[in-house]
């Protein structure tokens, strides 16, 4: 492209006229994904999110080594300890990746440079997914290291009790949490509202639904099909095995992620960016 060869002295030179350019090519989606990945971590909040994942993984590992009794120094306990802070921070990264465009108003530039908002959101979703996968890989690696070091320090055998079938479910569980955060971001388009919203649907809602299931029999059977926390916890425990359990996961995903995401995207594409 011509613009790439322009030097600063000539770009402001009054005597120069605009060159005839070859028609610009559309921006490839891979480039948008790279840009969105950069944007997730080149802000102060994004930077500390990333750092906190690393720090909390190490802290959680250290805590298990120091406080856990010898028979509890197992890979599963390390994975659980690391998984908890991870399951809180990853959805926050997903939320802020979307909402900062509105709360920080950087969307004015983003959606001017890329008018197709659907493509921007698509790139953000892909970037979020990649961050989720990489973070989980880091978590498993730190946990494994902790398990080896911890068992050596405690002088017990190293116990690898997370099966290869369970690990993908744990990853999927975290991706579900990120998807919920992403959806809230798309629907609410405000950092504060989406973060509060996330804690409502992840902390307040499960209690209410569990209570409802206790007092109303008909709801007890229905809850696993409606309560996304229920199916997410099953994933974290690696307990989603039967076709029925996968169908339940599909049902909660449709209700809490697919449907609101579609509606949110429809509004987002028409809404005014101010």
């Amino acid at each position, binding site marked *: 492209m011509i613009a790439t060869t322009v030097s600063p002295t000539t*770009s402001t*030179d009054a005597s*120069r006229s605009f060159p005839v350019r070859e028609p*610009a090519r559309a921006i490839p989606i891979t480039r948008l994904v790279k840009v969105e990945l950069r944007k997730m971590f080149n802000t102060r909040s994004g930077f500390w999110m990333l750092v906190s994942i690393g720090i909390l993984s190490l802290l959680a590992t250290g805590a298990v080594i120091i406080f856990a009794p010898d028979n509890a120094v197992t890979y599963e306990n390390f994975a659980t300890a690391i998984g908890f802070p991870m399951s809180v921070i990853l959805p926050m990264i997903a939320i802020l990746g979307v909402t900062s465009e509105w709360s920080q108003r950087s969307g004015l530039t983003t959606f*001017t440079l890329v*008018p197709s908002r659907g493509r921007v959101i698509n790139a953000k979703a892909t970037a979020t997914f990649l961050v989720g996968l990489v973070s989980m890989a880091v978590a498993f690696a730190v946990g494994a290291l902790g398990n080896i070091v911890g068992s050596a320090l405690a002088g017990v055998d190293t116990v690898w009790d997370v099966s290869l079938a369970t690990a993908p479910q744990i990853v999927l569980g975290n991706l579900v949490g990120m998807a919920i955060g992403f959806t809230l971001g798309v629907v609410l388009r405000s950092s504060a509202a989406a973060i509060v919203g996330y804690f409502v649907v992840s902390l307040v809602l499960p209690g209410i639904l569990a209570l409802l299931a206790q007092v109303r029999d008909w709801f007890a059977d229905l809850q696993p099909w409606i309560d996304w926390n229920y199916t997410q916890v099953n994933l974290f425990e690696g307990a989603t095995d039967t076709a029925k359990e996968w169908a339940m996961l599909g049902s909660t995903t449709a209700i809490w992620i697919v449907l609101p995401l579609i509606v949110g995207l429809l509004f987002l594409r028409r809404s*005014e960016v101010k």
Partner: protein
Amino acid sequence: MITVDSLTRRYAGFTAVDNVSFTAQPGRVTGFLGPNGAGKSTTMRVMVGLTVPTSGSATIDGIRFADLPNPGLEVGVLLDASAQHAGRTGRETLTVAADTMGLPRTRVDEMLELVSLTPTEAKRRVRNYSLGMRQRLGIATALLGDPRVLILDEPANGLDPAGIRWMRDLLRSYADKGGTVLLSSHLLHEIEVIADDLVVIGNGKIVASGTKEELLAAAGTLARSTWPRDLAHALEQAGIASTLAGDGSVRTDADPAQVGAVALAAGIALTELRSAEGAGLEDMFLSLTADTQREGVAA
């Protein structure tokens, strides 16, 4: 070229932009004027696809903005200098934009130099920027892709006098090499100095548009004499309506030659005779938008 055709944008209960049509020509600086809330920013947002019009269209060289494959290379946009991520450094803000457009990183340094942001300033986060620095960063973002069309909303806002002069020269040279520049401003003097064409909007409607010369010529003649009352009387005798201003000047819609002839015939010595251009833009602006001014005063 920017073409706005019968553009209307309605919100629940009121019409922000009402059947607005105008063009901004290449090689010229078009000033977009109007009181607060007249619909300038809404019109500009529709131009760049951030707001969906209720009806009508805005196109850049015949193409809808949203259909441009890589808009940053064709149209430089600065709508609001404050609309930047506060937690990102100035350099990162530009890097993200350059990456999106597919430009080399060297372009970022070139732009920082062009808008006079020092390397130290570029490393600071936008949260700590003054309005003038944000404005410079916004202008750098707009110029990054070396576009042929510039759409700038209040670009001089918050700039120091040297910055305003720099900005004026920059836009002038952009237009002179064939670029299209559309800028809105409340700083009437600024617009008067730089604009070739003017579009005046009030209450969402175009109230005047044309070249600066045409519009200001319509502002009439200003004459001074030692005996302003006699001059006003003589003009009245000649069938020319005039107003006697408090500062002893006589204003009329007639052109200066007519006023001179009347004064000569009446034997009145004039101390000043010129087209009322000097006071022009502000008077014209206030009278054209009188119905829509919040203060409710006419010029």
